[in-house]
């Protein structure tokens, strides 16, 4: 009844092979084993409170396995629809209370109903693996603003008058219209606040007095943010109508990860808008996660919150550029380390982030760097800068390296800084500030070279990561092949054993039959003898004759 084990927790076996995405929290589950979690949660099947015995006739591990496997297989027949207890209990024999408990356990631990859309109308307590319907009030998950929002560039910031960088710069992306020397930007309406009209909300966000007043009157920070989102959306293109949203969802379900196809499906919106819209939807992140092989969007939310946090940090520190650079970068490094330690993004995620051309290079770089350790990034940045330095001696100046430093390569911290540059553009700014008196020409060179360095770093990091993934894939494939072969072998062994047993039994039976035959013949002999002695006429019995005649040959 249970499908053959495949080892990996992320695939279930059903011809043709399908990939089931299950929440990471239930990765302990195996088809051919009963895990400690299960034993602890349902001790009735395992002999009482200790959970380690063998139970009774109607509650034992074998029965438990049958129930569990049936329910999970039933759910996996159609993972998108919610499996109800009533559906399964009609097919299972046993106490409904116990079955209910088992069902609730499977539901809560994410083994069933993990990608079913929540369909209960009444408010119910949902298991943690399901979609979070709205962000908590203190946290503002801002979606990536659509492409056109980035289009208003200011050429790399106010420090470089007259020079326009190609739209790859991240500086303008991050700050929008902000430039040093201007007032802080209101977090809500994105406009510059006139001096003195800055208010601080309780979570430290700076808003202009207009927005503050609005905010007070409506009394809901989220609502205003929603307005801003909508305005940004409207600014980009027409607002999303219900029909469009529906088509978008259809497209997502059909095409999964392929944003080109989805944007084709939704004819009136381009891909970045589709993505932005999907994220805005209450369970959009959830769907993305489902598609990408992770049903919790921790990574994504982390990314967006990190970006927002960085924006905030940067805004705060804008008034003291030099001093806080280090602090900020150290924060950056820590963020990246944390992230790289706690999660392994899947391949799908990588694909998604690198295809999108509207995302700035720096942001892509950040996404990539989060996937590997800072050391790798530093090494890549090292190599990139060195190569660039070899290309053009000016570059060395641009990187403010003395000859000695360059040779000894003792600048990994600088490289890390530059490599990690979500504020790579701001790097240019900061370095520009910290070396007052540099001519514009030099700053121009430094920026381009830094950009190029960043690009090279990105490539290096991406290459390293790809190699790692390829190795991993290979190993996984080998493992799977080995397990398949092993399973087949075991199957054959069982069959052989079975047949041997049968043979043994047959031999025994044969011997018994022989004995019985012999004794029968003897009995006949006796009967005949007595009949003969008694003088009873014996009819000639053909069968018996044959028996006697055949006897020696038996």
């Amino acid at each position: 009844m249970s499908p053959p084990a495949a080892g990996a927790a992320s695939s279930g076996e059903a011809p043709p092979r399908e990939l089931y995405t299950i929440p990471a929290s239930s990765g302990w589950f195996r088809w051919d084993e009963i895990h400690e979690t299960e034993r602890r949660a349902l001790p009735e099947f395992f002999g009482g409170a200790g959970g380690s015995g063998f139970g009774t006739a109607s509650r034992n591990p074998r029965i438990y396995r049958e129930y569990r496997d049936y329910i999970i297989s039933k759910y996996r027949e159609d993972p998108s629809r919610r499996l109800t207890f009533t559906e399964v209990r009609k097919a299972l024999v046993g106490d409904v209370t116990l079955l209910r408990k088992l069902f609730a356990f499977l539901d809560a631990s994410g083994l069933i109903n993990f990608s079913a859309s929540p369909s209960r109308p009444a408010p119910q307590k949902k298991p943690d693996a399901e979609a979070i319907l709205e962000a908590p009030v203190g946290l503002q998950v801002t979606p990536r603003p659509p492409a056109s929002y980035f289009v208003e560039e200011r050429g790399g910031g106010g420090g470089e008058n007259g020079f326009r960088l190609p739209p790859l710069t991240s500086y303008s992306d991050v700050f929008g219209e902000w430039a040093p020397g201007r007032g802080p930007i209101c977090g809500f309406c994105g406009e510059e606040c006139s001096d003195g009209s800055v208010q601080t909300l309780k979570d430290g966000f700076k808003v202009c007095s207009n927005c503050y007043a609005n905010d007070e009157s409506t009394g809901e920070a989220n609502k205003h943010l929603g307005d801003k989102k909508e305005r940004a959306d409207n600014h980009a293109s027409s607002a999303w109508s219900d029909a469009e949203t529906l088509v978008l969802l259809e497209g997502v379900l059909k095409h999964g990860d392929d944003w080109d196809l989805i944007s084709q499906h939704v004819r009136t919106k381009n891909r970045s808008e589709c993505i932005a819209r999907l994220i805005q939807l209450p369970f959009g992140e959830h769907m993305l996660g489902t598609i990408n092989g992770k049903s919790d969007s921790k990574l994504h939310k982390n990314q967006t919150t990190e970006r927002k946090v960085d924006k905030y940090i940067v805004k705060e520190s804008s008034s003291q550029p030099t001093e806080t650079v280090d602090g900020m970068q150290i924060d950056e490094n820590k963020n990246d380390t944390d992230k790289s330690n706690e999660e392994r993004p899947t391949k799908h995620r990588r694909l998604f982030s690198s295809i999108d051309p509207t995302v700035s290079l720096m942001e892509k770089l950040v996404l990539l760097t989060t996937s590997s350790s800072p050391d790798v990034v530093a090494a890549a940045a090292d190599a990139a800068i060195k190569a660039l330095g070899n290309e053009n001696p000016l570059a060395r100046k641009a990187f403010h390296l003395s000859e000695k430093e360059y040779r000894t390569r003792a600048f990994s911290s600088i490289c890390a800084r530059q490599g990690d540059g979500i504020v790579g553009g701001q790097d240019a700014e900061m370095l520009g500030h910290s070396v007052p008196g540099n001519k514009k020409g030099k700053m121009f060179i430094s920026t381009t070279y830094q950009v190029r360095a960043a690009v090279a770093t990105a490539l290096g990091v991406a290459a390293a990561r790809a190699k790692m993934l390829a190795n991993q894939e290979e190993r996984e494939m080998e493992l799977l092949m080995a397990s398949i072969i092993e399973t087949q072998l075991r199957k054959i062994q069982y069959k052989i054993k079975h047949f041997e047993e049968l043979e043994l039994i047959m031999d025994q039976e044969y011997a018994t039959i022989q004995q019985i035959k012999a004794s029968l013949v003897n009995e006949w002999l006796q009967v005949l003898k007595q009949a003969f002695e008694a003088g009873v006429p014996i009819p000639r019995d053909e069968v018996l004759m044959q028996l006697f005649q055949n006897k020696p040959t038996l």
Partner: protein
Amino acid sequence: MKTVSLGANRPSAVKFRMPTRDNLVPIRVDVEVDGQRYRDAFTWNPSDPDSEIISFAKRTAKDLKLPANFVPQMLHSIQGQLAEFRSYEGEEMQIREKIVPLKIDLRINNTVIRDQFLWDIGNLDSDPEEFARTLCDDLNITDPEVGPAIAVSIREQLYEIASQSVSAMREARVSKKGRRAPEFASNSKAMHNSLDLFKYFGSKGSVVRKRKEWYLYEPVVDVARKEEVGAIDATEELSSRNA
């Protein structure tokens, strides 16, 4: 080959109580006064003080706008059922794992529900209310009265089983048949349709039912239209009067 022993089917004796998590008694009231009829079914906590019964009866009569002469009859009915429950309370009863089929066949307002399922009367952690709630949620039944009615029906059946086992024990003790008799007596007299465990739980059986049998254990819900409801009401009334 292997034999399965129904090892832990050892009965243990506990004081009489409802074999559910909450010891609540099902009460059914059917009172008729001056052509007006009050029928109701609910669960009662036997450890509530008796003064509660009076206030409950009075409040119910007031809420349903029944004349005051309903109250004494309601009181009498409720108290009688509670007294019967309490009379069992001193006894001991055998608790062993025993899976019996329970049936639901109810009409509440304009919802008709029929269902059958297996219940372990030895599972003292069972909860009819939760079962009823799950059932209504899964079947998307919106009428809020259906769930409690199902729960009460389950409780009634469980109560009947429990009280039967107690009275069987009582009889056996009275007739001095010795210790083994109660087990046999309760085996034969109490749930005659207790489940043949071996067939399903034995080593050759499977606890997954055959597909063709699923319809037997599946709930069937009908939502009758208004006219039909009126007709059903009338027929029920007639039959209960004649009975």
